[in-house]
């Protein structure tokens, strides 16, 4: 793509967005739940939201890089980057929040057959089906490959029994993509398959999990003799672990990168709101020090993301990247929330006042403790680095 073409695309995109993105669909989003998630259980919360989604859908920009036959926009990496930059410049909200796009899509594109791609990808981009993720199990934890939810071969269908946990908004999902055990006799990683399950099937039940933050973004999903057609198997039988690993790397990057974006929670701004400067200096010397330590690590972490992108462009993709970002991004986010709790003192400990949105920050603080657990614990990331990058021996 020449510089001319780039500029051209940028200008066209900007104009289109300015015209098609309603003002109410721009600006910060307090709660991701307010956005459009698609599926049968959700509907548009406003006319503008509907208009914005439909405009983007018809443009193919719900999944800009997917092929047009799947409802995508067929954009190149570079075009997609320009689109994202322009959306960010105008502060456009995401038209659709979808695990279908971020998690299932990449798996189907790489491992699915043509029928599956045709059927499911289109229903992701047009917002008809909302997908949920079914990986973890109540007793599996970090040992994901030890999963026990089983799929028995019953000739024309699989029979599913077991349960899945930590499914984000599983109670709102239409379909769920699951890792299930299809062979108990082999090494644990070798007997896993990747299956698509309609949550309206008989025998599927969900239960909301209440978190320490008081919120319930996750559910547990139970499968009691659920019948699943054989055509819903993605990839080969017993090769599901390969798909899972591929997707986990994606997920890790997403969670790690989530750290620093939340502009409303900028510790420096909060510090300057909480304390009056004395001779231009924060009056609490230790908090001042903690703030500068945090900012040092945060800024250098951003530089590291920048460098990794530049290295990748230069063809030096590092295998370390995803574990490093997952580990450091989540640890840093926890530090940030601890720092904010220190900076705000008793004012953010109050949970039933409109002044602080009913303890919004405290809930986020508690929620951040999960960052170093979900998507592979910090310990698992350190294991991966020490084994795969540093080459340290296992027993």
């Amino acid at each position, binding site marked *: 793509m020449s510089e001319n073409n780039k500029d051209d695309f940028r200008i066209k995109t900007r104009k289109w967005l300015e015209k098609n993105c309603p003002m109410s669909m721009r600006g910060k989003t307090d709660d991701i739940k307010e956005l459009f998630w698609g599926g049968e259980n959700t509907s548009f919360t406003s006319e503008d939201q509907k208009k914005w989604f439909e405009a983007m859908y018809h443009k193919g920009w719900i999944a800009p890089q997917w092929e047009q036959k799947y409802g995508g926009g067929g954009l190149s990496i570079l075009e997609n980057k320009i689109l994202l930059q322009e959306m960010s410049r105008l502060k456009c909200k995401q038209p659709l929040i979808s695990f279908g796009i971020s998690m299932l899509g990449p798996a189907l594109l790489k491992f699915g057959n043509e029928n599956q791609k045709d059927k499911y990808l289109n229903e992701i981009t047009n917002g008809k089906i909302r997908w949920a993720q079914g990986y973890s199990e109540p007793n599996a934890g970090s040992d994901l490959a030890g999963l026990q939810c089983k799929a028995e071969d019953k000739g024309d269908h699989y029979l599913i029994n077991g349960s899945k946990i930590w499914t984000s908004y599983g109670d709102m999902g239409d379909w769920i993509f699951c890792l299930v055990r299809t062979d108990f006799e082999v090494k644990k990683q070798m007997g896993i398959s990747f299956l698509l399950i309609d949550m309206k099937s008989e025998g599927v039940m969900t239960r909301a999990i209440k978190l320490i933050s008081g919120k319930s973004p996750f559910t547990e999903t139970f499968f009691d003799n659920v019948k699943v057609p054989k055509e819903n198997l993605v990839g080969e039988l017993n090769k599901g672990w390969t798909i899972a690993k591929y997707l986990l790397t994606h997920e890790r990057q997403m969670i790690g990168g989530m750290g620093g974006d939340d502009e409303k929670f900028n510790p420096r701004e909060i510090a300057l709101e909480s304390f009056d400067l004395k001779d231009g200096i924060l009056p609490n010397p230790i908090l001042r020090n903690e703030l500068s330590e945090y900012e040092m690590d945060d800024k250098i972490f951003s530089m590291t993301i920048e460098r990794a992108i530049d290295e990748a462009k230069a063809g030096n993709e590092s295998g370390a990247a995803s574990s490093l970002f997952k580990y450091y991004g989540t640890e840093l986010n926890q530090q940030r929330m601890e720092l904010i709790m220190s900076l705000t003192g008793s004012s953010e400990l109050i949970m039933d006042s409109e002044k602080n949105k009913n303890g919004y920050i405290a809930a986020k603080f508690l929620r951040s403790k999960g960052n170093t657990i979900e998507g592979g614990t910090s310990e698992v990331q*350190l294991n991966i680095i020490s084994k795969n990058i540093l080459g340290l021996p296992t027993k």
Partner: protein
Amino acid sequence: MALVLNEEQQLLKESVKDFLDNKAPVSALRKLRDENISDYDDTLWSEMIEMGLTSLTINEEFGGLEFGYVALGQVLEQTGRNLSVSPMISTVLMSTTFINVLGNVFQKNKYLPEIAKGNIKICLAHQETSHFNIKDINTELKGDGDSYVLNGEKHFVIDAGISDYIIVLAKFETESNYIGVILRSNSDGIKINISRLLDDRKVGDITFKNVKIEKESVIEINDFKLLERVFDISSIGLSCEMLGVSLEAFDKTLAYLKDRQQFGVTIGTFQALQHRAAKMFIELELCKSVVIKGLKAIDSDLSNLNEIASLAKAKLGRTIKLITNEAIQMHGGIGMTDDIDIGFYIKRARVLQQTLGDYNYHLTRYAEISGY
């Protein structure tokens, strides 16, 4: 001043432990939260009064048991372990100490026997901003003929909603002198706004508007050091509760490490977790030392109580943060859910950390006391 408990104190500790394990475990806090009918359990409180827990630090001449602060500390460690909700901190630790240290004979005679008998509950209203600082006082007491009037706003007053009396820390007129006032919480001109905290307990914002104060309700503070002593003793008392919270969170985590299976083995076999657990154990041993030292320093009237109090609150503040964070992390996903109790510990921890000054406040104060 041996840093060990005597037999009487040890006995008290064990009987309070048995009592609270039975009567006020975490499930009781859960019930208070979920039913949200009252701020505390009055039946539990009656039994605690019966056991003499309200009279531990009150001298015999005022109807107390005169067991001292080492004894009170053992009780608070146990309320910390069980996260038991009661007016112990507001009435017995803070307010009783305020009267013990600063009250005149008339006031001691009037209030201490009533506290000992469990007839009254008192809260201490001191803090005015979102960060504790003993010196940030703008609430003002002014002369008004034979009596006084009180004006100001207080924040983060523990048990403000259930107390019969309020002790208010104020400035006297425009002078820099501090002064205390004790008054009925239903007096004219008082407005109390109750909030629920992160740890599911209640505090109040209190506004005083031209509240009339009789002479006999004024608690004179002739020496700023004595006011500091009130807060130093209270900080050490809070450190006891923080020790209990930390010890219990650690014990629960250790039990989980021994029980939980992953990758076909008990996760307690992982050396990285073992070393982190060992370091937590060591920090807790250090915490035990500074807490008992602090309690003994109160009862023995050591002159460097201010230094020890700030060391205790700082050290416990740092350790409770480490332990509760590690507790969640080592429990993994289940630790993030309300299904088990560990989350209650981190919530109580963060509130205790902020109460009467956090790590940063106390470490900076320690440097000031040390002359650098």
